[in-house]
């Protein structure tokens, strides 16, 4: 029977199947960080269980680590307790860890791919919903909760019910200045924050195939914001090219064997999806969010919507609440929204290509007066590469801050936060109330829009400069 990419990867990992029970799926790579793991290790300790495959497990410190003075003791006592707990747990259970100061440290979803640990056809899990990022390689990758983290640590498997599949076809050519982030924001606005529920999304079509691995990761990363469990893109030459020669990628004869297998993974031509969505790439433009969930987004050229435009009562209340929280007036042009903080970073847009896009816009320009702009590389490796290319100098010359790697203002668990009422343009993935600090207001944007906004002081695209 014809199978989709997701179904092929699933079938290759079924350890045990029994009627009326979820399939028991083998997990090839388990990524761990300081926030969702302490209670899982606690559980193992309480039940006297060991980590079954420490060498298929990797820990990194990212969610709440500071992005300045990283070699000093962490000032925040709770962050320190979590990081210390992770280090102690990894030592006790034999799990490899990349701590602050290690050249491989960084956001877990940036670290896995750049090491070549994330490969096509794998199952990848992490106690973080943006694990969907790794689907860009044709891996089945999804976020899990802390008790599932404990389950994978103890058994290297997870009992799971099959997902449905949805094809997101993005065909045609993206207009100049339109990026992967705009594609994903447009997809979410189209299908809604609940539209992907129960599905694994497979992004296909010529516009997706034309994306770099970085762009594909951005798209898959945000799948969770459409409610989907995972997002995937079939592996192809772009994927192989990215992986070749990376630290943990296979080499020599193993490489050939792996590529031969990976080439069998793309969905069969006649495979059936449970749902399909079609998007014409040529109609897309820079996209920004105006509300308090990632589905509340519009082209930058649009106006803030009005509760009167709502499709139903629930929607009307949602728009009303969002406008109130965001401090926006219905009907005002999105371009008139003044921003005081710009955040570039996160597992959505904290990779080298994103920093290059930002530097290209900032080059020879200054950020608006009073503007705070933070540029936070997704990993130490990304930071080093950017510095080798001189991007840090461009960033600093423009008046923006150049920081150490971590999640930073994506979720504001470290000192990088919005104050109440402050407004950011952010390349991260969530604009929920309070996500970037209590009372903070977030507009999700692409790296290029973030940079242009920093210069103009209001939401803007590079074309506006």
């Amino acid at each position: 029977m014809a199978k989709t990419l997701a179904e092929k990867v699933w079938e290759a990992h079924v350890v045990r199947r029994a009627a009326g029970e979820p399939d028991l799926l083998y997990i090839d790579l388990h990524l761990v960080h300081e926030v969702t793991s302490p209670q899982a290790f606690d559980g193992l300790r309480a039940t006297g269980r060991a980590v079954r495959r420490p060498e298929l497990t990797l820990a990194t410190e990212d969610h709440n680590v500071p992005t300045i003075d990283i070699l000093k003791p962490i000032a925040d006592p709770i962050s320190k307790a979590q990081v210390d707990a992770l280090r102690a747990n990894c030592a006790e259970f034999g799990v490899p860890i990349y701590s602050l100061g290690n050249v491989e440290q960084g956001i877990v979803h940036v670290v896995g791919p750049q090491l070549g640990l994330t490969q096509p056809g794998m199952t990848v899990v992490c106690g973080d919903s943006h694990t969907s990022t790794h689907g860009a390689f044709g891996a089945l990758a999804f976020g899990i909760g802390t008790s599932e983290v404990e389950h994978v640590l103890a058994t290297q498997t997870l009992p799971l019910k099959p997902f449905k599949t949805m094809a997101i076809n993005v065909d045609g050519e993206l207009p100049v200045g339109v990026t992967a982030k705009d594609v994903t924001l447009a997809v979410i606005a189209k299908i809604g924050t609940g539209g992907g529920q129960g599905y694994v999304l497979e992004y296909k079509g010529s516009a997706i195939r034309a994306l770099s691995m970085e762009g594909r990761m951005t798209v898959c990363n945000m799948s969770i914001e459409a409610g989907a469990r995972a997002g995937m893109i079939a592996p192809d030459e772009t994927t192989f090219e990215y992986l070749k020669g990376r630290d943990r990628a296979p080499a020599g004869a193993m490489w050939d064997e792996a590529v031969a297998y990976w080439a069998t993974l793309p969905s069969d031509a006649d495979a059936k999806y449970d749902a399909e969505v079609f998007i014409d790439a040529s109609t897309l433009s820079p996209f920004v969010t105006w509300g308090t969930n990632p589905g509340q987004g519009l082209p930058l050229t649009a106006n803030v919507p009005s509760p009167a435009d709502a499709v139903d009562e629930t929607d009307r209340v949602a728009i009303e609440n969002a406008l109130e929280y965001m401090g926006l007036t219905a009907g005002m042009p999105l371009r008139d929204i003044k921003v005081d903080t710009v955040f570039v970073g996160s597992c959505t847009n904290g990779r080298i290509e994103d920093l290059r896009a930002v530097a290209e816009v900032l080059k020879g320009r200054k950020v608006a007066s009073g503007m705070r702009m933070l540029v936070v590389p997704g990993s130490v490796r990304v930071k080093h590469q950017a510095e080798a290319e001189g991007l840090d100098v461009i960033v600093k010359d423009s008046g923006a801050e150049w920081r150490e790697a971590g999640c930073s203002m994506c979720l504001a668990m470290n000192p990088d936060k919005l104050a109440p009422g402050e407004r950011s343009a952010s390349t991260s993935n969530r604009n929920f109330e309070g996500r970037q600090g209590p009372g903070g207001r977030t507009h999700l944007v692409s790296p290029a829009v973030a940079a242009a906004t920093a210069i103009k002081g209001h939401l803007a695209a590079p074309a506006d400069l």
Partner: protein
Amino acid sequence: MEKFITHTGTAAPLRRSNVDTDQIIPAEYLKRITRHGFEDGLFGAWRKDSDFVLNQPAYQGVSILIAGPDFGTGSSREHAVWALQDFGFKVVLSSRFADIFRGNSGKGGLLTGLVDQADIELLWAAVEANPALEVTVDLDKREVRAGDLTATFEVDDYVRWRLMEGLDDIGITMKHGDVIAEFEVKRPAFMPTTA
């Protein structure tokens, strides 16, 4: 885990859609490294408002939450389930749940019952008219009963079985250790390791 067959208690109406896990338990509470004591952070931002339903005297001691559609969206944090449980909730009813939240709930022993929005509206009206109304959630019959109202709810068969048996996931899987070991022998050699 305690067995869950039926539960009777009072219920609170949460007339909001798209309640994401950042609202259920704000990120600042996630820094803890213990597994209990998250009740103080439940709906952290809203609890500062004295009008918020859980702050109203009539809804003290509730154990059933009747929520709007798309409950539990957003981050996968299981703390959302713990916070609800630590606060005293045994059941959340909604017409739509986010997948990860629902999965986390089943594992933690918090029942998430999928109820038609029309029945949610009736339940809201009933508990708003009488906050002291006894609500019974019958997992065996997959029924919610409140006064003369009876609504059915959907729950995954496997999750239901586990809740009713009070079984822990890891213990079930570890019984299949030999099958896992057999699978491991056949994994391709080109797959990466982290060590």
